[in-house]
């Protein structure tokens, strides 16, 4: 006969194994939802699914049923100033999408959720909680052969109130220059671009319109490509794996972090991994290399010595 304490022991062991197994499969359920979860919850009235894709026409040609389209180029940035969307426009956008105060929101998009992560950063700036990313984004949903819809969703008008912009998760040029000049040595910069861009061998990848006149990186930045944060299917790696990857580059959460890339969208993805999954104190520098590498009088580390060849 098995004693009661032994049964309790075994049950406890099973519960612990289940808990750790789940935790490894889904690092932080507060930040991410799986495709399975979303498929099961699509019909909920208090859930708004929003697609933020960068490729025009992606949403229109088929989207997760019931999803609303936020266009990165015009909805989540200011179209005149180089800036993020202003508070009033963002609030209108959310209300038109049917978002009310306590609704849950799931964001997803193309190109590995880069622009959806930008969306998550904007939601955070304006104090909108209950926002999660679809792990693996649109690519995973499609790869699993899940249904897409052509029909535009119609929602009753929402009544959400968004807060004033919280700039504490956004880095601007003066602060970045302070870090680069070693005047804010307590802050860690993470450059998530390719090694070739980081080392200054190329100014930007082939075919991009946004360029800088200088090659290289911000002094003191470490290079951890955004792709290090994801598995082959585009889902985020587990929290333990992420912690180890960034710790190897000296980013362990003991200091505040600033992430940057070329225009600030891929760095949102790393901002999401570091702040939302690992809980570090992170700012995204949306000016990124196109601003920094074009600024006059700022220090640049250019390992390859590439000189701008433009006329």
């Amino acid at each position: 006969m098995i004693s009661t304490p032994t049964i309790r022991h075994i049950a406890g062991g099973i519960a612990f194994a289940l808990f750790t197994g789940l935790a490894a499969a889904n690092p932080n359920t507060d930040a991410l939802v799986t495709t399975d979860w979303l498929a099961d919850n699509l019909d909920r009235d208090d859930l708004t699914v929003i697609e933020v894709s960068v490729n025009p026409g992606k949403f229109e040609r088929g989207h997760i049923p019931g999803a609303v389209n936020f266009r990165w180029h015009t909805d989540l940035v200011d179209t005149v100033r180089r800036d993020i969307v202003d508070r009033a426009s963002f609030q209108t956008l959310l209300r038109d999408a049917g978002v009310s105060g306590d609704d849950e929101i799931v964001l997803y998009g193309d190109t590995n959720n880069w622009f959806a992560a930008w969306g998550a950063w904007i939601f955070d700036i304006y104090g909108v909680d209950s926002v999660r990313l679809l792990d693996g984004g649109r690519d995973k949903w499609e790869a699993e052969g899940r249904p897409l819809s052509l029909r535009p969703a119609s929602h009753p008008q929402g009544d959400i109130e968004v807060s004033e912009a919280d700039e504490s998760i956004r880095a601007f040029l003066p602060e970045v220059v302070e870090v680069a000049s070693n005047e804010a040595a307590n802050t860690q910069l993470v450059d998530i671009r390719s090694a070739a861009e980081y080392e200054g061998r190329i100014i930007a990848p082939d075919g991009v319109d946004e360029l800088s006149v200088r090659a290289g990186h911000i002094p003191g930045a470490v290079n951890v490509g955004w792709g290090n944060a994801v598995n082959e299917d585009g889902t985020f790696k587990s929290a333990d794996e992420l912690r180890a990857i960034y710790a190897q580059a000296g980013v362990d959460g003991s200091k505040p972090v600033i992430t940057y890339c070329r225009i600030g969208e891929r760095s949102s993805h790393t901002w999401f991994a570091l702040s939302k999954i690992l809980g570090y104190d992170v700012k995204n520098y949306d000016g990124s290399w196109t601003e920094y590498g074009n600024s006059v009088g700022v220090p640049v580390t250019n390992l390859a010595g590439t000189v701008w060849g433009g006329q």
Partner: protein
Amino acid sequence: MENITATDTAPALRRRLLFSTVLPTLIAAGLIAGSWQLSVSNGDPLALSLLLGATFGVLLQRARFCFFCVTRDFLDHRDARGLLGILAALAVGTLGYHLIFGLFVPDPAGGRLPPDAHIGPVSWVLALAAFTFGSGMTLSGSCISAHLYRLGEGAIGSVAALGGVLIGFGLGFATWNTLYLAGIDQAPVIWLPDLAGYGGSILIQLGGLGLLALALMRWHRPAGPAKGAAPASFRGRLIGQRWPTYVGGLLIGALAVMAYLRVAPLGVTAELGSLARTAGNGLGVLPDRLQGLDGFSGCATAVKNVLLSENGAFIIGLILASLASALAAGDFRPQRVTVGKAAGSLAGGVLMGWGAMTALGCTVGTLLSGIMAAAVSGWVFALFCLLGLWVTWRIRN
């Protein structure tokens, strides 16, 4: 297919069977197998492009859907049936496109354009490009899409014309930056539903097409019934005889709607443009940056970074299927080409290539897909292309 007669010898019969039945069947099987292979290895859009291109090729070949030929029929003989076929395609396409637009852009007055639709800037550059394209059509004897399906009919002269098109595209890239700043960058991109709503846009489009159809029917001089022709069997009507252009037009209108919904609007120059741009870049003779080009919808001409693009698969399907169709119908007749004729084709091709690049597409992309999309640029292209065709036709006659 020509009738098999009792006087055919056994080898002639075998030859006839090989060309009219075996080869077309093999090509059709190859296209289906290729599409299946593409769907496994590259996903649906590429596989669909190949099948849509093949269907387009069969329709062009069967219905002799050639913009220049049907216009010449009208100018030479007042035979308006071909032009009416084009109007039929535009009417069906207009209805289908507007149906899809309602899904893609619920509020057409918001200043946003439907994705990928061929709605271009309206400027004097577009008018000049369309005029040049029309002249090139007359000189070379066909528009670009017709040259492509004529390849399948064994038209050797079309090779010269398509070579000219590649050269013309190169010239188009070379002059693009100058023309862009001179007349394109400030030009308005006018989409009728933005101005008049979907209902108004359909009324304007179908009203315009209806008026044109009425005018053509009034000018039409009916051709007498063919003398001595025996009534054809169903198989003969389907495979042996040409289809009336309106049948091709109605089916092409439907095909255009399907293509826009699932892959991209019909267009035949993107792949040719990409080849020319990649070659020009390789030779170092083109500008590094083509200002604003990638921001416009139309037959976009990206530098080639994949061997088989969607438009490339579409063109391959078009040529192979028109070859199969021509073989089955007995329309495959390679002919000798004189140097003078080849030179005319080449020169016409150059004009068409320059015009198609500068107008962001040709009679298929800018005219057919553009007008179906209720783009004013499509109508402007049609007008000036016709003008260029007519002026050159008058000079040649």
